[in-house]
């Protein structure tokens, strides 16, 4: 590093970047193809949304004309999601396990991030999904995801070991690590107050739960704090139902 400048902060940032190159495969064509897919999906969403509105109007019309008051629908759903409105075992289970936290509903948040994070995989655990929690006019959410190891090629295997204690490295706020008979549980807090629970399952994968104050754009006013307390987060992370088949 002989090219030090008279700006020490820039030099430090330069050292942090080094000679880093993007590891993304594919050229610009891949990006243009991704943009085309987003355009197509937006169009499909508009058409799907219109179809759903039409279907909703058809369903509501007889009730309105008959004068009967329709029950108020408070479920947060995305019309074009394709998810069937079948009785939701996960929601029922979570409501039972988390009394008093607020109204729990399954939801879908569009994070609008095409690319690797957009890969849609089949749900592996009975409780997987994103769940909104509404209380006092504010809405937070928590997400549950079961991941199998091997989805991140190139990752050092030691980070998947239940013995790996991320709290020891510092940097994570309110971090707790607990060794379990079948793995470990780490809970920590992100910059924005979100609580994250990571349960490592020896040799299998991990359960990740994100406990967030909300997403104003998608869910409305955010909560002052994540909807689940640390104890509730731990309870759900260790719930045997996590590992049951959907």
């Amino acid at each position, binding site marked *: 590093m002989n090219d030090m400048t008279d700006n020490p902060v820039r030099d430090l940032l330069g050292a942090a970047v080094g000679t880093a190159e993007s590891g993304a495969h594919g050229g610009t064509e891949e*990006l243009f193809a991704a943009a085309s897919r987003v355009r197509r999906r937006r169009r499909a969403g508009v058409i799907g949304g219109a179809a759903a509105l039409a279907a909703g109007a058809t369903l509501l019309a007889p009730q309105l004309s008959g004068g009967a008051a329709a029950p108020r629908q408070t479920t947060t759903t995305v019309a074009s999601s394709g998810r069937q409105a079948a009785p939701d075992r996960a929601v029922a289970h979570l409501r039972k396990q988390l009394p008093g936290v607020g109204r729990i509903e399954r939801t879908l948040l569009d994070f609008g991030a095409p690319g690797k994070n957009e890969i849609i995989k089949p749900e592996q655990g009975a409780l997987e999904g994103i769940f909104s929690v509404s209380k006092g006019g504010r809405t937070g959410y928590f997400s549950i995801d079961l991941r199998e190891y091997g989805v991140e090629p190139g990752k050092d295997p030691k980070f998947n070991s239940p013995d790996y204690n991320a709290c020891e490295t510092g940097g994570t706020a309110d971090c707790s690590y607990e060794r379990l008979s079948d793995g470990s549980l780490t809970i920590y807090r992100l910059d924005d107050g979100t609580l994250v629970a990571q349960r490592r399952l020896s040799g299998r994968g991990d359960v990740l739960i994100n406990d967030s104050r909300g997403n104003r754009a998608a869910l409305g006013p955010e909560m002052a704090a994540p909807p689940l307390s640390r104890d509730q987060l731990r309870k759900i992370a260790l719930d045997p139902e996590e590992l049951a088949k959907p």
Partner: protein
Amino acid sequence: MAQDEGALHDFVAGRRTALFRSAFLLCGDRDEADDLVQTTLVKVILGWRRLERLDNIEAYARRTLMNTFISSRRRFWRRERPFGELPEQAHPGVDSDLGLSVRAALSRLPAKQRAVLVLRYWEDLSVETTAELLGMRQNTVKSHAARGAAALRALLPTEALVLQKEAA
């Protein structure tokens, strides 16, 4: 129109590495930086027809990168990695001891402060342009830059600062 498309292709190809390096400073993680750049460039491709000039695209790309990064810190866990995993994933040609220490220190700064540091000191933008891109007042940018630089130095282990002096 074909000429415009060509200019857009050139822009995307030409700016990808520079955007990746800024994203890498923001995220501290190569995979996340790749995702951030891809998201940014896809948004640029989708929105470029609304932008009349190429320098507008440049500003739009920077703004999109920063906004996507900052909002990702309020989002889903998929966008977050436990801090402990960041500095230990060595990559050839990238990870000097000083580099690892700086990335670890950066990851402890608030997202907006990181964004200001990257725009002001890495991309060498003026206070005015940084403020405009991030939708902040100029005084806020100045304060974030000063506090961020001080915090960065304070968070770095003494050995890293010695390394920096030796390298100079």
